[in-house]
């Protein structure tokens, strides 16, 4: 193995008289060795004004672009300071590299960027651009919703246009495969509610009311909300990522050229699948959540399972369950629309997939909570 020995680059500066100086470069002027040399070079340059300089480069070992650039930059600076510089002992490689770099080194002055606008202007500029951006995104979002609705109506008139296979596959992905995580979260929610309620109710000796509390709060509010949030994080993000990658790989363009309308083939199946799956998931979460509460009531308040169930049948009006499940399709639609829309927003680079996936999850969760609040207000006003 032949390993070339590296010599640290060095520059010896001697001033021979008030009008002449001799510099000698030695060693390997290689990019990874040059860091410490720049200050020395600057010091040497600063001490020379109006001098004839003989620069001996015959003892340089290997030299690369960075090393040669230091020579060239020094040369320019020296010329500005009224010095005449003469290289001595240049090797052929040195001359060739020197010429090459000079040829490709363009005049720096031309590349100066235009004057920076003042801070306040750039802040206003930024705000303006963002506002316009939000406006366009909103307009695109509404257009997207409209487009998907039109394709939905078309599919209603031509039922064969529904992609049954894709819908079933999506139900499997978004619904069936989400069962374990939904079970775990809703069980834990049931446990938490029971614990919190048990401590308070025990003070009043009103143990049995734990059933009312768990039954109504879980079926009406908590199960739909928690399920929707988990689904937004799990399925909404995957919709964005799937469609985003398809957009990057031009699959969506390919589909368009073949006349496969992406809305009909990609968006509607996902939307319909999620709108079918989420209510079912909420019902599942109701059962598991109440079971969690029942277990804690039994352990903590000595309420037997039989008593719990008997009381539950008496106090849990079926409307609460229906209201909770009825929110499902609305939440599902929001999650699917936001997920798919952001997938289509993905632009040409991979980074935007990450960005839009985040946006999609955050927006979906926000919209789900906002929608839930609207439901609460309306239902309360209606007295249901």
């Amino acid at each position: 193995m032949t390993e070339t020995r590296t010599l640290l680059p060095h520059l010896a500066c001697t001033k021979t008289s008030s009008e002449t100086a001799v510099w000698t470069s030695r060693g390997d002027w290689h990019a990874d060795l040059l860091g410490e040399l720049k200050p020395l070079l600057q010091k040497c340059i600063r001490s020379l004004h109006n001098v004839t300089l003989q620069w001996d480069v015959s003892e340089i070992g290997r030299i690369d672009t960075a090393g040669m650039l230091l020579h060239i930059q020094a040369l320019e600076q020296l010329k500005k300071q009224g010095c005449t510089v003469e290289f001595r002992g240049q090797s052929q490689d040195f001359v060739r590299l020197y010429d090459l770099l000079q040829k490709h080194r363009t005049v720096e002055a031309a590349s100066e960027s235009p004057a920076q606008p003042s801070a306040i202007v750039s802040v206003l500029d930024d705000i303006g651009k963002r506002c316009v951006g939000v406006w366009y995104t909103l307009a695109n979002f509404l257009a997207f919703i409209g487009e998907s609705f039109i394709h939905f109506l078309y599919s209603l008139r031509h039922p064969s246009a529904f992609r049954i296979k894709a819908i079933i596959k999506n139900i499997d992905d978004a619904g069936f495969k989400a069962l374990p995580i939904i079970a775990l979260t809703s069980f834990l929610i049931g446990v938490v509610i029971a614990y919190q309620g048990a401590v308070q109710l025990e003070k009043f000796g009103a143990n049995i009311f734990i059933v009312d509390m768990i039954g109504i709060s879980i079926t009406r509010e908590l199960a739909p909300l928690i399920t929707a949030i988990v689904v937004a994080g799990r399925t909404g993000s995957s919709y964005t990522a799937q469609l985003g990658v398809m957009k990057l790989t031009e699959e969506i363009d390919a589909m368009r050229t073949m006349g496969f309308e992406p809305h009909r083939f990609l968006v509607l199946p996902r939307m319909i699948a999620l709108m079918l799956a989420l209510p079912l998931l909420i019902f599942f979460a109701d059962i598991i959540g109440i079971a969690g509460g029942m277990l804690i009531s039994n352990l903590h308040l000595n309420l037997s399972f039989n008593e719990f169930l008997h009381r539950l049948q008496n106090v849990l009006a079926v409307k609460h369950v229906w209201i909770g499940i009825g929110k499902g399709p609305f939440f599902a639609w929001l999650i699917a629309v936001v997920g798919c829309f952001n997938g289509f927003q993905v632009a040409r680079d991979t980074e935007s997939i990450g960005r839009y996936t985040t946006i999609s999850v955050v927006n979906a969760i926000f919209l789900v909570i906002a929608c839930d609040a609207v439901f609460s207000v309306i239902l309360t006003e209606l007295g249901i």
Partner: protein
Amino acid sequence: MSVIIKARNIVTRFGDNVVHDGVSLTVNTGEIYGLLGGSGSGKSTLLREFILLLRPQAGSITVLGYDVMALNPFQAEQLRRRWGILFQSGALYSSLTVAENIAVMLQEYTNLSSDVIADIVNIKLNMVGLPKHAADLYPAELSGGMIKRAGLARALAMDPELLFLDEPTSGLDPVSAEGFDQLIMELRDILGLTVVMVTHDLDSIWTIVDRFAVLGDKKVVAEGDLDTVMQNSHPIIDAFFKGERGRIRSRHGN
């Protein structure tokens, strides 16, 4: 002429799929060396073995004097600084601008000041023929030809001795492809590079490649300059050079 890459009896398998079964070849310093072969003949795999991305099951590879099969991490790092690689699709870092892509190695591995790095970046950009305003663009904003040029500028950033190109002209129009070939040849002459390129562009083979190896049947079926290889009557060579495209080229060219 000294040898820069020496590969002997390389065996590569992916599961049951044998890709190389005793591949041997030699690249000399200062030449433009082509790796040829049909799709699936293992050219890119061989290239990945040279650049430490893959390890063959058996055989020996020497690159720039280092035994690639028995490198310690320190040697591997030294070796990696002495070559430049242009990937087939450019593989520019999409979160960095073109200028940052070129500067990244210099910033990580040297302690040059930022104005020297900026100067080097400008020179490299100019060398590969990219306009100045391209420096501040992101890879997503570049055309195919510009991506290749930016990738080449990045490969050249550390002044490598050895340059690996994976299908440098694929996806370029004939004019750009010829320009790119010219550029590689020019850079080889001026910078004294050794270039190893995977290609199936017949034009590149005729115009810029000094020597090449043709892979087929899991082996090197022929190695040498164009005349030597054309003498060979192996069916793979015939298919490659005496097909319709090859015949047209040889009638006009040479």
